[in-house]
């Protein structure tokens, strides 16, 4: 039975539940917008990285370099899209 529940994945799951609980603090505790957003940004990106490495086996084979390059490329485009839009449409810069 034990071999069906590898330690790495069980710990990954426990850690992701923990990150969710930390993120929930912004709802249950009273804090400033900046503090709340900082917590959310940190927990969300750690959580995403955890999925990528622990569960999606991103760094397992010789394609590791190509896979990470592609993910970071997607991520950069995503961040430029989101923050570029915020800059132009919301922050009025």
């Amino acid at each position: 039975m034990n071999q069906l529940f590898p330690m790495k994945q069980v710990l990954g799951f426990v850690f992701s539940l923990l990150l969710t609980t930390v993120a929930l603090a912004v709802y249950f505790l009273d804090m400033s917008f900046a503090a709340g957003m900082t917590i959310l940004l940190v927990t969300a990106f750690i959580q995403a990285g955890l999925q990528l490495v622990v569960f999606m086996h991103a760094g397992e084979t010789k394609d590791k370099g190509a896979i990470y390059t592609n993910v970071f490329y997607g991520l950069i485009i995503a961040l430029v899209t989101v923050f570029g839009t915020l800059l132009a449409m919301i922050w009025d810069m």
Partner: protein
Amino acid sequence: MKIDNSLPLEYSTEENSLKILGFWIFLGAEIMLFATLFATYFTLENRTGSGPTGAEIFQITPVLFETLLLLTSSFTVGLGIHAMRIGNKKAMISFFSITLLLGLAFLGVEVFEFVTYVHEGATLQTSAFTAALLTTLGTHGAHVTLGFFWGLFIILQVKKRGLTPQTTNKAFIFSLYWHFLDVVWIFIFSFIYLKGMM
């Protein structure tokens, strides 16, 4: 077909490795797709017109259920892939079935949530905010729905053909898709719901 036995079955041929890499490239494009939806949502989230605001319609209970269901399903599909790698077909099918049941439960909660929104007067046509919100949530929900049927067919095929380089490759690619949907949900959970209720 050259089979490399030092690698897990789903990577064992050159074609298999290329299919997995190709799927990662697709996921890169999906990241960008959801980025455009988030950019639109952040631009329009305060344009509520005469409709309700996020703080008025978001409820923590269904959102928590959705998050736990999807997080757990991401864990069980990971266990399914682990079982597949040690050659335990029965355990793999069980874990994949649990994953799909959790996915179905997630969709149930989301449909309930959408019905509640419509009853509270937040439809796709109410305001720029509700349109951007429902489009973003709906695109994710549509992905989960597609994933449900995809996973169902994977289970049927593994049942019928066993663990071969082809079926394990398909199952592994499905698991990548499912984990990715969980990643997107984490961002929806953090930057749409929690931010909106803060």
